């Protein structure tokens, strides 16, 4: 299982772009990269997922270099409500069956006025 490393915490201000980088040096061929967001006393919520290059949805972008050993979650123009813990995970979604995801400590993002 690929281990991920991401910063423990980050600070930003409203309206700024936030980039959170995650390293996963041992990522396997079948592994996808998934990011979750968690607010206090709530379960994690899926944000975005990708395999390579760039993925964009209505809330974020995910940049994955060719070697796939890292990924960067980009949150455009953050607001106070984006204050949360962000988790980067890698896991096999191709082989099917049981999908074991390992959650690290995540990155605690604080957005200030």
């Amino acid at each position: 299982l690929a281990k991920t490393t991401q910063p423990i915490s980050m600070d930003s201000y409203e309206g700024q772009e936030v980039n959170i980088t995650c390293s996963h040096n041992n990522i396997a061929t079948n592994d996808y990269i998934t990011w979750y967001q968690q607010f206090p006393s709530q379960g994690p919520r899926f944000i975005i997922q990708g395999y390579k290059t760039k993925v964009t949805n209505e809330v974020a972008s995910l940049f994955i270099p060719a070697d796939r050993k890292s990924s960067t979650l980009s949150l455009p123009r953050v607001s106070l409500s984006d204050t949360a813990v962000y988790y980067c995970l890698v896991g096999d979604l191709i082989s099917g069956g049981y999908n074991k995801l390992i959650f690290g400590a995540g990155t605690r993002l604080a957005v200030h006025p």
Partner: protein
Amino acid sequence: SQTIHQWPATLVQPVGSPLSLECTVEGTSNPNLYWYRQAAGRGLQLLFYSVGIGQISSEVPQNLSASRPQDRQFILSSKKLLLSDSGFYLCACQRQTGQYFGPGTRLTVT
């Protein structure tokens, strides 16, 4: 779409008392189900997973157990709670893009 129900939302139990947390899933059949625990300020720890009725796998040794009596029902239990069992317990269901989490149960063991 899938919906996960967990109850109770919060629970305060004395040390040595039994525990039963229930998770039910709607909108899917034969899901892979998971129990996680999150200690305060920490990441999620996978406790159990189940790929079908009566099929339970444990990830870490502990005094907790899990059961899956029905396809969309997953139960977390303990015969005697420890202080260290306090935490936020999350049930999750596997989806194509990863896992979908329920609202969680906050357990405080006193």
